[in-house]
């Protein structure tokens, strides 16, 4: 029988490494949501002396590629400096797994994003963010690239679901090209809020729909 996954993916899927929560983590993040069908949480402990990842664990609600990427990313990140870990790419994770099906990119990229966001969370909580850049339309757009359009599996910016972005005095307005009562409207709204609200100078986020 032929599975669409490599033996390494299947091995990690069946026996994922570093599964679970870390109590009182130094940094944590969750990417995705049950609505998209995939969700991953990443927890890290940082050794402040060396600025390296002392421990990392993950939890996954998702398909095989999501679980396997979560597993491999924790193996790749452990012992690395924060800067090194932040730069681990989806391609590196995929290569370490012997390759992933293209159609599963959106499920597996979540783990990579999860690790980066957990590190970012650590840096924000410990005042390590180097410079505070004022939020612009472009920064909002960049963050929205992490919100998946469940209709296609690609992000909402690339699939033109984001019709308009406005940033005025700390109030961010995002216009989504979907009817208000669409199957995915609330999910997308929640994810947009989650991604934008944490920006340091944003006071309010409004998500509007075209219909």
């Amino acid at each position, binding site marked *: 029988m032929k599975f669409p996954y490599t033996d390494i993916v299947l091995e990690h899927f069946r026996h994922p490494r570093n599964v679970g929560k870390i109590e009182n983590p130094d940094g944590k993040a969750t990417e995705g949501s049950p*609505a998209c069908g995939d969700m991953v949480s990443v927890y890290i402990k940082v050794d402040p002396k060396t600025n390296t990842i002392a421990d990392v664990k993950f939890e996954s609600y998702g398909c*095989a590629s999501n679980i396997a990427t979560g597993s491999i990313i924790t193996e790749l990140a452990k012992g690395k400096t924060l800067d090194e870990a932040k730069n681990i790419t989806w391609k590196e994770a995929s290569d370490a797994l012997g390759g992933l099906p293209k159609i599963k990119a959106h499920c597996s990229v979540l783990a990579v994003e999860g690790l980066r966001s957990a590190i970012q969370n650590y840096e924000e909580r410990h005042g390590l963010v180097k410079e505070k850049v004022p939020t612009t339309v472009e920064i909002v757009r960049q963050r929205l690239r992490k919100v998946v359009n469940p209709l296609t599996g690609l992000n909402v910016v690339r699939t033109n679901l984001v019709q308009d972005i406005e940033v005025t005095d700390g109030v961010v307005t995002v216009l989504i090209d979907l009817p208000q009562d669409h199957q995915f409207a609330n999910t997308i709204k929640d994810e947009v809020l989650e991604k934008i609200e944490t920006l340091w100078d944003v006071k309010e986020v409004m998500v509007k729909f075209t219909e």
Partner: protein
Amino acid sequence: MADKFIYLDNAATTRLDERVLEAMRPYFFDTYAVATSEFGYSQGIEARERLDEARGVLANALGAAPEEFIFTSGSTESSNIALKGVALALGKKKGKHIIVSKIEDFPVLHSAQALERQGFQVTYLDVDAEGFVDLNRLRDSITNETILVSIQHANQEIGTVQDIEAIGRICREKEVLFHADATHAFMRVPLDMKTIAVDLVTVSAHTIHGPKGIGGLCIRQGTQIAKWVDGGFQEFNLRAGLENIPAVVGFAKAVELVTLEETKRLQEMRDHLIDRMLTEIPHSILNGHRWKRLPQNANITFHYVEGESITLHLDMHGIAVSTGSACFSRSLEASHVILGIGGDHERAHGSIRFTFGRYNSLEDVDTAVQALAEIVKELRKISPLGKDKEKEEV
């Protein structure tokens, strides 16, 4: 890898019965001629006779007359003919309004949407938490412009069996045509057109261990319907295309092989699976009605875990099932049926459909339950969801 393959996806398609293949074989190699009129040559006349006999078997199974049954390439085509054929016949004459349920299978749903793009109005009826259409709401939705109500006999995913007798009465009283997609109910849930006021019925062979690529549409005499597939004069000039003699012979044989005892056996498997899963696997819920469901269908959501992971693990155990999870599908959209009964995305993504057939046994069910219990437990250990609810009742 497990040595035995346990196939529990019989709603997707079934294994062909050898006896069906044997019945079909002569019509590939010996009597392979096209069905001719009684004035043709002997091979063609014999083909015609087999076609007529098969038509008789199919019509009889639905309580109809032979001339009320046409063969098609399958239930997708049958439902397309039913909706588009009626729309073409009555759209200009009577009105442009059609009613379907929200949880119809794609042939009906997407035919309705195609008609909508051509200027028809379509009402998509809500269903309740178990998948039933509200009869009062159906009655209220019918207007003077309504030409057709299309509501399935039983649901493809959650197995809910609609009260088509009552639906038929309402349609008859309001003088609108009623089409029932019986793809999954055919030969498992009785449907007698002599007592049920249904005008068009879609059926298929591959769900009852018959060949793929053959189905039918039963059209009550006098029903106004236009020809949709143009070409020759086959099937009472209602559906053009070379008659598929081996397939129609196989279809009739498949119908003759279904017995009430067998259906009862499938129901035992269903009940055994539902009872064991719901008691032995915590945080699992049944989708659809406990009793008013297809005898061969069980559909269960395992909370906090995702369906594609479950199906992959089951596959490694040699067990085939399907899931309403988006990851399993080609569209990345969660099951419209689970969402239609008011379920959220998590309920859809964690839903697993088990459907039984002739070649399954109670032993298979036990193997599946045992495998599922282990898999769900392992996946929940990994899942970030539901950790705080472990001790609560769902």
